[in-house]
């Protein structure tokens, strides 16, 4: 074996070096460094590879930076303005256009719009993330169980999923919001008071958006469970639950992440339009959506009332969609376009 390797090496070296005439003396010089290099250089993990591809995606990086700026805005802003200030109203200063004292102007009952976009942004982002959390839990569970076990379990779960998809989402949201709002009292968290309607909205949006995710996970399950490595896992005596969670789900992480990211943007938009219809989060808790609702009657007379929250919704959704797009490309090597 050793002899063979050396023979191949020397033949190769001779071929390479013959023109310069250095000959056999440099066999080790030529080969040792490269061989050593390939051995010592740690190969990239899948996550590192994905991050490298993500970084090359200009729009995604732009989205990521924008998203980071927005998060700094809603968190950092809370240190500048107190919540009392955001909810403080003085009818004497109502409907002021943007000025040095109130950079984004004031609303119909004299609250500072800049401060309200900060606190409203927190709620909007929390609703977006938490609603996606709910839809992830339900969607992944339903999809995984349905796809893995198949048979009658699959039939029941999928017919139920399809039934939900048949009901127009807006209709479902309005009815659920109308019926459930006010059922949960206000609650305290992090020393602040939140309207109970936040929880309701999170649940409504979450429970209304898991169906596509469930279908994606199910279809992935169907193909992955036939893979040989799943049979190999059965062969080591791994239980069904462990096979689903540790062996199959990590393989579906890419579509789940992409779907969840885009879901955050969707949930923020959904919250905005339920709130715009007056069925969303109750005042005094601000969200970007219910700020738009307040601006409803002043579309022309006080455009700053809808411009700033509307712009923030637009930027957030745009940023998240760019990131989602970038993730889709980064996590799916086959979709690579140079």
């Amino acid at each position, binding site marked *: 074996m050793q002899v063979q390797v050396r023979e191949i090496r020397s033949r190769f070296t001779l071929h390479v070096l013959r023109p310069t005439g250095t000959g056999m003396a440099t066999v080790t010089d030529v080969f040792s460094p490269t061989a050593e290099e390939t*051995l010592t250089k740690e*190969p990239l*993990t*899948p996550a590192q590879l994905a991050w490298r591809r993500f970084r090359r995606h200009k729009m995604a990086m732009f989205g990521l930076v924008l998203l980071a700026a927005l998060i700094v805005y809603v968190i950092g802003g809370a240190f500048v303005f107190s919540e009392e200030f955001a909810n403080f109203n003085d009818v004497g200063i109502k409907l002021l256009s943007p000025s040095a004292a109130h950079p984004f102007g004031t609303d119909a009952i004299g609250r500072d719009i800049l401060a309200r976009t900060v606190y409203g942004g927190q709620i909007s982002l929390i609703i977006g993330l938490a609603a996606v959390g709910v839809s992830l839990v339900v969607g992944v569970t339903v999809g995984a169980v349905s796809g893995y076990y198949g048979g009658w379990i699959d039939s029941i779960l999928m017919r139920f999923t399809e039934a939900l998809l048949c009901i127009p989402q807006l209709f479902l949201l309005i009815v659920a919001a109308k019926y459930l709002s006010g059922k949960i009292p206000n609650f305290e968290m992090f020393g602040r008071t939140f309207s109970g309607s936040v929880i309701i909205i999170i649940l409504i949006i979450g429970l209304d958006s898991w169906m596509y995710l469930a279908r994606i996970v199910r279809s992935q399950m169907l193909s992955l469970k036939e*893979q*040989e*490595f799943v*049979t*190999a*896992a*059965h*062969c*080591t*005596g*791994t*239980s069904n639950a462990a096979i689903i969670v*540790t*062996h199959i789900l*990590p*393989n579906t*992480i890419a579509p789940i992440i992409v779907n969840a990211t885009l879901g955050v943007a969707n949930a923020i938009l959904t919250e905005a339009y339920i709130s715009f219809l007056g069925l969303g989060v109750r005042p005094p808790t601000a969200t970007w959506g219910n700020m738009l609702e307040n601006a409803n009657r002043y579309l022309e007379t006080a455009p700053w009332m809808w411009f700033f929250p509307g712009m923030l919704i637009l930027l957030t959704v745009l940023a998240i969609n760019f990131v989602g797009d970038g993730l889709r490309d980064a996590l799916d090597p086959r979709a690579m376009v140079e």
Partner: protein
Amino acid sequence: MRSDMPTILDVKNLQTRFKTYDGLVYAVNGISYSLDEGETLGVVGESGCGKSVSVLSIMGLIPQPPGIIAGGQALYHGSDLLKKSQAELRHIRGKEIAMIFQDPMTSLNPVLTIGFQIGEALQLHMAMNAQQARDRTIELLSMVGIPQPDRAFDNYPHQFSGGMRQRAMIAMAISCLPQILIADEPTTALDVTIQAQITDLIKRLRDEIGMAIIWITHDLGIIAGLAQRVIVMYAGFIVEHASVDDVYDNPHHPYTLALLGALPRVDMSRSERLTSIPGMPPNLIGLPQGCPFAPRCHFVLEKCRQENPPLTFIALKHEIACWVDVQTGGLR
């Protein structure tokens, strides 16, 4: 050439079928064999003859439906594996009966580290904690000849070559020191030099651990230096069962003869052509009338088309399923 060791696995009249839209597929049709402790049994036959299905049936890995285990027994230490629940089988799989698959490219999970996949069985069956499993896994990796095993532990399958992946699969299979190792064409997807290395590795581990092996292959050359006994399968039937020497020196079934004729030999002149077996393996939908090999057989007689020959002893420890005496060409 049966060893005097006690029997560890006794398969009796195993029948496996699959329900398909075209009809019932008769994949395994009443095969019986036994395996002694520490013995290596070769199972040969062409693709689709039921080799893999027969062992997957024993392991309880045939999805039902569409699979149907229509009958038979698989006695492991006297208790029937076919009657055990999945929960009971989970304690046997990986711990007492382990398996290596054909294609190391697809049988390792691409998103989990090599170390995790090997260590999982140890934590599951040997009640090891994560650290113990890690140490043992690194030992196993060096046992199967993977360089820098402590580093390989954290590697992902895509960082391994085909041969290294198959070594990792072997490490996974032997992790709990199984009594039976089922090797389902473990070298088919590898190139020849790696094939030889892997075969030597499994041989060495067999002697160290003292496990019995069922080696499934369609390469008669590999079996020769490895197995004590050989089963030749065709269309879900065992057609010849003999010691490895008898199969090579004194084959009696026309199919075995044809398989050996199709094998290139070093001592054959270059101008000589390899013989091929005319025709295709039969469609397994519906049981054949007569001998399943009859349509492709050189020696076929009228009786072959009428009646399927049972497996009968023609010499000590040498069974064949054939009506014809290949020496005379007449009925046996």
